[in-house]
């Protein structure tokens, strides 16, 4: 294996989403191809013209809820639980979802508490489509998933998309939470993650914590200052879920020195960060809003610093300071190196990434660049198993499959234990090899690889498959197994399940 060949493969596997036919033969400097992705003018942004903004997506959900409520009232006395009501068609979303759509302002509801109406709904989500017409949130989720898949399949190397996957999992929301997160999970990634993957950490943090999907997912939309106007009138109060996960998961990391008091104080500061309800009294329904009536008045102290700003500025100042804590750099560097290089990356590599994060004041582009400028990141052995998303996408890329139907991909991700935007908790999906190299996980990969191979109808010879997908990394036993397959289809399945394809 020549060094150049090996570097091209590492570029596509460790940093990217796997080679498509012809990618390996094209040659060229692999690092430059990655840099070209990082410096592309549109960055990781997707073409959003066909997809709704968060507020539009949530208005579709509100309208659907109102319509179902009216229907229930009309047929009161009958048990409708099992009779799904046809949902409005949101295929042509943008034109039909303006604030003036019929039904949006219809039924009565609790203003400023959009999260409250729907939290606690537990459902299957993902690809398991019921026979009835899909709800607006299901339709939006599918459109978002299709856009994400198209972007992953079309990427030259895929480093930017890997960065999106990393940060989206770091700041995860789950569609299992509510129909709000179900409808807005894709918007969340497009609006709060993608614009910042080569930008500033503090900006991403700010966008994430003000996004309706996150405010609903971690219950802050309903959190009310006990001494605020709303708190006194309605006997509601604090919910510290978001504040805790900001410190524990999003920024500093567990055990990094903050206390229970810091969590509670940050929760007070973040009261009032909520979602405009369906009646639109505080703004555009479904959009982020700061509700002064729910905000805990007075100053608060987090990590030794006093915040006495008024309103939204108090929380923004606190988040900006938290983003600068030294523990954030260490936490991010460790996770970043673990995702790309090894479950236990070398202390030298994580220290270097941490220093660059700190010295650049949280420049995520500099962090991404530092990784591909580090020799260890190119030369470390392939000890990371491709996670289910990477495996499925790399399989599709290997066979040059189009994203015509996202359903089978969503189904595959469900079966492999990584349902799209549906982690089991706010810590996201595991990033350790042992989590994915499980008996059930590997067996399921074999079944899916067989299915992909059946569907690929690839006419290439096994020899050219090896050259185009594994290149010089193909070991003698793998080459032999693929060449001796009883059919092209079986050769393709063996190739997808080869150690060279599974590990990166």
């Amino acid at each position, binding site marked *: 294996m020549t060094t150049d060949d090996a570097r091209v493969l590492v570029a596509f596997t460790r940093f990217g989403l796997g080679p498509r036919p012809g990618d390996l033969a094209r040659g060229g400097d692999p690092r430059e191809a990655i840099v070209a992705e990082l410096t592309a003018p549109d960055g990781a942004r997707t073409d959003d013209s066909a997809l709704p903004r968060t507020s539009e997506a949530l208005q579709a959900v509100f309208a659907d809820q109102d319509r179902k409520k009216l229907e229930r009232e009309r047929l009161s006395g009958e048990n409708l639980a099992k009779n799904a009501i046809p949902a409005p068609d949101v295929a042509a979303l943008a034109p039909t979802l303006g604030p003036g759509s019929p039904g949006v302002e219809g039924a009565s509801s609790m203003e400023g508490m959009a999260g*409250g109406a729907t*939290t*606690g709904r*537990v*459902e*299957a989500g993902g690809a*398991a489509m*019921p026979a009835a017409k899909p709800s607006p949130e299901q339709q939006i989720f599918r459109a978002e998933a299709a856009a994400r898949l198209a972007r992953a399949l079309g990427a030259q190397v895929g480093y930017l998309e890997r960065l999106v996957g990393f940060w989206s999992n770091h700041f995860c929301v789950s569609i299992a939470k509510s129909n709000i997160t179900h409808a807005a999970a894709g918007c969340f990634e497009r609006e709060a993650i993608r614009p910042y993957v080569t930008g500033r950490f503090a900006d991403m943090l700010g966008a994430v914590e003000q996004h309706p999907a996150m405010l609903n997912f*971690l*219950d802050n939309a*309903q*959190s*009310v200052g*006990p001494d605020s106007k709303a708190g006194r009138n309605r006997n*509601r*109060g*604090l*919910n*510290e*879920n978001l504040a*805790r996960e900001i410190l*524990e998961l999003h920024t500093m990391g*567990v*055990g990094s020195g903050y206390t*229970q008091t810091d969590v509670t104080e940050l929760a007070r500061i973040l009261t009032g960060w909520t979602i405009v309800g369906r009646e639109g009294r505080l703004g555009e329904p479904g959009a982020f809003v700061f509700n002064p009536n729910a905000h805990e008045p007075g100053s608060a102290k987090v990590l030794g610093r006093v915040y006495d700003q008024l309103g939204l500025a108090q929380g923004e100042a606190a988040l900006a300071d938290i983003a600068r804590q030294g523990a954030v750099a260490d936490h991010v560097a460790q996770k970043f190196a673990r995702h790309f290089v090894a479950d236990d990356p070398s202390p030298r590599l994580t220290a270097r990434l941490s220093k660059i994060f700190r010295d650049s004041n949280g420049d995520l582009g500099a962090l991404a660049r530092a990784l591909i400028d580090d020799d260890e990141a190119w030369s470390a052995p392939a000890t990371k198993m491709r996670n289910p998303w990477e495996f499925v996408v790399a399989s599709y890329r290997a066979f040059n499959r189009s994203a015509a139907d996202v359903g089978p991909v969503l189904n595959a991700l469900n*079966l492999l*234990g990584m349902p799209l935007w549906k982690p*089991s*908790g706010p*810590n996201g999906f595991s990033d*350790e*090899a*042992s*989590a*994915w*190299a*499980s*008996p*059930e*996980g*590997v*067996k*399921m990969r*074999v*079944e899916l*690889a*067989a*299915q992909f191979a059946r569907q690929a109808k690839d006419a290439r010879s096994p020899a050219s498959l090896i050259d185009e997908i594994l290149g010089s990394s193909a070991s003698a*036993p*793998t080459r032999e*197994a693929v060449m001796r*397959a*009883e059919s092209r289809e*079986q050769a393709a*399945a*063996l190739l997808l*399940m*080869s*150690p060279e394809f*599974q590990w990166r």
Partner: protein
Amino acid sequence: MLVCETPSLSRRRLLSAGGALFGWAYLPAFARAADRRDPRLVVIVLRGALDGLSALAPIGDPDYAALHGDLALRRDGEHPALPLDSFFALNPAMPNFARLYGARQALAIHACATNYRERSHFDGQDVLESGMPGPGHVESGWLNRALAALPSGERVASRGLAVGAMPPLLLRGGAPVLGWAPSGLPAASDDLNARLLDLYTHRDPILAAALRAGLDADQIAARQGMDGLKPGGDIALAMQKAAEGAARLINADDGPRVAALAFDGWDTHANEGGATGRLAQLLGGLDAAIAAFERELGPHWKDTAIIAITEFGRTVRINGTVGTDHGVGTLAFLAGGAIAGGRVIADWPGLRPADLYEGRDLKPTTDLRAALKGVLADQFGLSPQTLAAVVFPETSALKPMAGLVNA
């Protein structure tokens, strides 16, 4: 990481007919020589931190109703709690557990916790599942180390079953583990699997061990008539289905004797509900899962112990969004024919302000690990020395709780 159990296994041998396939993996019938029992153990992890005070309410505590507010269970009303004794009453979503309690086949341990005293789910789950003295040890779980410590020769019991595509930390480690999850895909051909096993045996011990274990579980599942079992959208039904599948696998004569399941969703920060609502729905699922084990295990139920545990509890007072935030003390459910049930084990700390842990949480007065050690000692005959040295390191001062399992 999983290790290869039988490196000498040849492809030819694996390809031979179904019955022989399992000859190498299991001894024909397993019974503890001393008493002819064939013990089974199921551990259910309730991820997200269960509100013990809404699951099993200290209705006799004068401070309970006021502190737990709208979530508090009551003796009267439309959905009265199910009284277990004069002090504790069970959430009405758990009628099966109450029935088993009456039949002395279920018990609860209240005001318990591991030694973990912070409030991070993930660290809390690490401690709960790893059995190590602190967070950050994710290489192996206590249940796996218990399996590994069983005397050689008792090999049927020495394989655990991990339900779901991701093995819980509880079962990760050196002892071989089977994996199973409901699936709707046509199975890959035996020939493809055999070729891959052959390739992995040359190239990749990790993938070899994982695939081999996955295929084993599949074979047992097929023989137990579990084809076509699919996870449902209804969370309670999904829990019941997972339990049914796991029960059929551990019920097989040559199946594993130990299974671990994880149920998510217990992190009830908002709109938790009390006798009805979100938490009640989840408790109903757990109750249905326990009933499914009882139904499917049939005659083996009498030797079965099920333990449902959670990483920590929730605040005693309800928060501003009709839910509860992370707390410390909680409870554990034990059920099964092997359990010496019909009682609530609790050194009740009280709920007056001075009684609460850090002024907010139920104070833990029982170390959950003592109960876990007790069940392992009584079900599988593990010695206190082994339990303190290997299974729950640095717990030699913590005696296994005696009498949880019928003598």
